[in-house]
């Protein structure tokens, strides 16, 4: 089972100068996404604008719905019929989607949601940088659940992460959230759009059960995957947000409900290794280990290179998978570090996961900024000096 596409760096393709939001759109089209529904919201709107123009060119459908709730619901519907589907929004819109996120988890519907974060709570700071939705992505919808959340800090990475997001969602029949921020979303930088075939794309696993033979849409194989039959196609079945049996019909039989919730959790939590994507710099000898993601990781990388140049042993783990949190990897890499500094633009969200993961949580510090401005390399440098007792 290969849930993710593998990269063959052939260097071919075409070079573009795009916004991160446009990269999301182009990568989604590359990944085979053919149904998009969305509602305008800053700072994600360019994704919808690009796709309204781009999707029909490849025979796809892009619809502007009446709100974010309707957007995600219609993506779920389209995805069940067999199309790869996606929506994009920002924090307030993502809040509205939470009920449908739970539905997609329960009904095991593959789809991708891009959340271009803005400052919160509430309408917050629409055009400013923030990374405050990390925990909303983890726990936004009610009830126990597992969720996959990926992130990226550069446009080239973002292109690949988007493809991985679709591959993961199709492999595990689950919604995948791509969590970027206003900076990555609105910044322009060069990006190479690879030729077709450079990335391996995961297509939907379809059932081999022939027509008129009893098909169990919700009977997982041994590897946890559920072969699908396009909804509306040759097998008639039921889809529901209620606990359900293997035919998709509601059930409150304790054995059925127990098995289902464990299946929904385990299919992702037990495959963390397949779902963990990181980028690492100097993690073998780092005394000060930075951990960051999204736009913050750009500043972290900058200061890490800067400090390395003056001989400081600084390293960086850029998390491209935020959920399920790669705790074991973080613990392993941080074992020899004197200090761990989590760089994020919120009041501290991933930092708690890091503290839970590492052997010495008292050595974990937060370098953050929450005023709507991007955290700078200097901000991180100041914190590191304070930690080291050198003053600012």
């Amino acid at each position, binding site marked *: 089972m290969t849930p993710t596409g593998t990269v063959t760096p052939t260097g071919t393709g075409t070079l*573009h*100068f*795009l916004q991160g939001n446009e990269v999301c759109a182009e990568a989604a089209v590359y990944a085979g996404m053919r*149904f998009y*529904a969305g509602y305008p919201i800053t700072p994600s709107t360019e994704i919808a*604008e*690009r796709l*309204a*123009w781009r999707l*029909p*060119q*490849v*025979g796809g*459908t892009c*619809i502007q*719905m*009446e*709100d974010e*709730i*309707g*957007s995600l*619901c*219609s*993506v*779920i*519907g*389209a*995805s*069940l*019929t*067999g*199309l790869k*589907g996606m929506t994009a929004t920002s924090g307030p819109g993502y809040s509205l989607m939470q*009920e*449908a996120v739970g*539905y997609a988890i329960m009904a095991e519907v593959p789809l991708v949601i891009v959340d271009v974060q803005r400052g919160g709570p509430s309408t917050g700071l629409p055009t400013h940088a923030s990374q405050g939705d990390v925990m909303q992505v983890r726990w936004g919808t009610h009830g126990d659940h597992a969720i996959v959340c990926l992130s990226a800090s550069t446009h080239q990475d973002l292109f690949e992460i988007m493809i991985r997001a679709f591959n993961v969602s199709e492999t595990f029949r689950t919604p995948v959230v791509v969590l970027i921020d206003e900076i990555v979303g609105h910044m322009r930088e060069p990006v190479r759009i690879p030729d077709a075939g450079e990335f391996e794309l995961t297509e939907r696993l379809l059932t081999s059960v022939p027509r008129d033979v009893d098909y169990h849409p919700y009977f997982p194989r041994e590897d946890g995957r559920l072969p699908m039959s396009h*909804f*509306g*196609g*040759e097998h*008639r*079945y*039921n*889809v*529901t*947000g*209620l606990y359900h049996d293997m035919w998709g*019909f*509601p059930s409150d039989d304790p054995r059925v409900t127990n098995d289902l919730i464990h299946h929904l959790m385990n299919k992702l939590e037990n495959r963390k290794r397949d779902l963990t994507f990181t980028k690492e710099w100097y993690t073998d000898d780092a005394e000060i280990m930075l951990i960051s993601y999204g736009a913050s990781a750009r500043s972290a990388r900058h200061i890490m290179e800067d400090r390395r140049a003056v001989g400081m042993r600084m390293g960086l783990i850029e998390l491209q998978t935020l959920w399920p949190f790669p705790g074991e990897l973080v613990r392993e890499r941080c074992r020899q570090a004197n200090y761990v500094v989590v760089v994020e633009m919120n009041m501290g969200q991933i930092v708690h996961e890091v503290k839970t993961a590492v052997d010495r949580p008292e050595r974990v510090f937060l370098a953050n900024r929450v005023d709507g401005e991007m955290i700078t390399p200097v901000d991180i440098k100041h914190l590191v000096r304070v930690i080291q007792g050198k003053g600012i």
Partner: protein
Amino acid sequence: MAVTDYLRRRFMPHIWCPGCGHGIVLNSLLRAIEKLELEKNDIVMISGIGCSARIQGYVDFHTMHTLHGRALAFATGIKMAWPLLKVIVPMGDGDALAIGGNHFIHAARRNIDVTAIIMNNSIYGMTGGQHSPLTPCGDQATTAPYGTVDSPFDVVRLASAAGASFIARTTTYHAREMTRLLAAAIEHRGFSVVEVLSQCPTYYGRKNDAGDAVAMMEGFRDGTVRIDRKTAETSDGDPGRLDGEAAGTPIGLFRREERPEYCEAYRRRVVEPAMAAGRGESETP
């Protein structure tokens, strides 16, 4: 095919209370589908939450039980992704017009080819008898112990203003007419709305001294006036406002007009030109 062949018989008898009008809607709907000789595999039924939404569990089509009020949004995605499917969305009055009101008017505005059936029993039944946006002003409900203060929507006028291209109202008493209207609505290309006045003897009837199911259906018989074709045409634009309004609730077919259907319009006006133009060299729209 017999009407009951469209049922998932293993789940019968259904969960609805004795005398519940929703069963009559199920009955008429299956007769309409039988009359149209539709294949089970061609039909998708998408429902939301509530007593009405349970109808989807009993029919042997592609069925989806979604979120409260959101059935039309799910249906929009399914229909756009697979326009050949017949999409039927049964909804309750609260489901369609309170929590789902926004999706309702927008589906109507787009004129997407979906059949919306509003099973109007003037009450939230599944949660035990709360007032809905279709509960007549002054009526009793568990959340209106002094009578409701809110004015109800008129579904026909609402659908008309929102742009639905097929609008009808009927009752469970008029089951034969309901079958005819539902068949016509399913055949119609565009957004079709059929409001069915349905009885909830358990909550609405008991709270409002409306009697049992039979008495409530007699109320539909005696409290409605059938609009004729001429009236429907002359009252267009405000189809609910009829001269005979004082005599009762108007029922019948209020509107059936040809307007560009959404999926087809999207294909013709967006996808085909875009595909013909190709991607080109341009990097921006």
